[in-house]
């Protein structure tokens, strides 16, 4: 069965860009630009991986991550944080005790994104 990924990014073109790259790799991908809807969509799609932007209106990526952490059924979902604010990301994930969550810095190289995805959930 093809592995599923949800991309949560309020910037539509970036979400589409990541979706295209990952679909080309063979993953099944959905994207969500409204972080307030992200948790519901993640629950419905039941992905293996969520690629999560941090700086979003309504609900930031940390809040989405906390929602996932609180839901027992969602704890197995792997997360990659994607952000332009690296230092802040490292500080917050330490405070949330989520040092296991990899951080991809924007602007990222395609190879770095794919390497991180493969390392996190393996091949499609």
């Amino acid at each position, binding site marked *: 069965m093809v592995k599923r990924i949800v991309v949560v990014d309020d*910037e*539509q*073109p*970036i979400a*589409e*860009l990541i979706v*295209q*790259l990952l679909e080309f790799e063979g993953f099944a991908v959905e994207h969500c630009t409204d972080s307030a809807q992200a948790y519901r969509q993640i629950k419905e799609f039941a992905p293996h991986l969520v690629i999560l932007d941090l700086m979003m209106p309504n609900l930031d990526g940390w809040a989405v991550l906390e929602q996932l952490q609180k839901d027992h059924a969602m704890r197995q979902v792997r997360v990659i944080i994607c952000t*332009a604010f690296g230092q802040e990301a490292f500080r917050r994930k330490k405070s949330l005790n989520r040092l296991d969550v990899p951080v991809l810095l*924007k*602007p*990222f*190289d*395609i*190879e770095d994104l794919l390497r991180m995805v493969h390392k996190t959930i393996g091949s499609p």
Partner: protein
Amino acid sequence: MGSKAILRDAARILDRDQRNIISRWTQRVVKTEAVRSRQDLHLQEVLGAIPLLLTALAGWLRKGDFDEPLNPPEDVRLKARTHAEIRLEHGFHLADVLADFQLLRGEIWRAVCVELYEMHSNPDDILFLGQQLNYALDGVLAATAEACCELSRRKGRAGW
């Protein structure tokens, strides 16, 4: 004087890394005020003719036809103009189009410089490439500005 071999090497890198250059350019351009304020735009609309322009630039480098670097060949000018037209159709301004090309300049240089520094130890070669690339992109900017002004006059727009 640097060799034209470095121009061909740069063209090869641009062809090979085109997807990555465009990806990085997109990630940068969505952070500009002009694009950020346009939540309605999809990826293809943001990209405009940048992928075609990059291909045309690589072709120009490959030919090594840089006798008049400030006067880009017709296909390069056409792709730059097409991108400008797409942007103007979406309500952007000339300054936004020029910012697009400045970001592209940065990503092109980032893509080629590290690898070419390793391949070409002669600093004259690197200088030659830097000059030719910058002249070429300046030529693109000038041609685009000209085209935008012409379009503006034709459409009776004001405010540029």
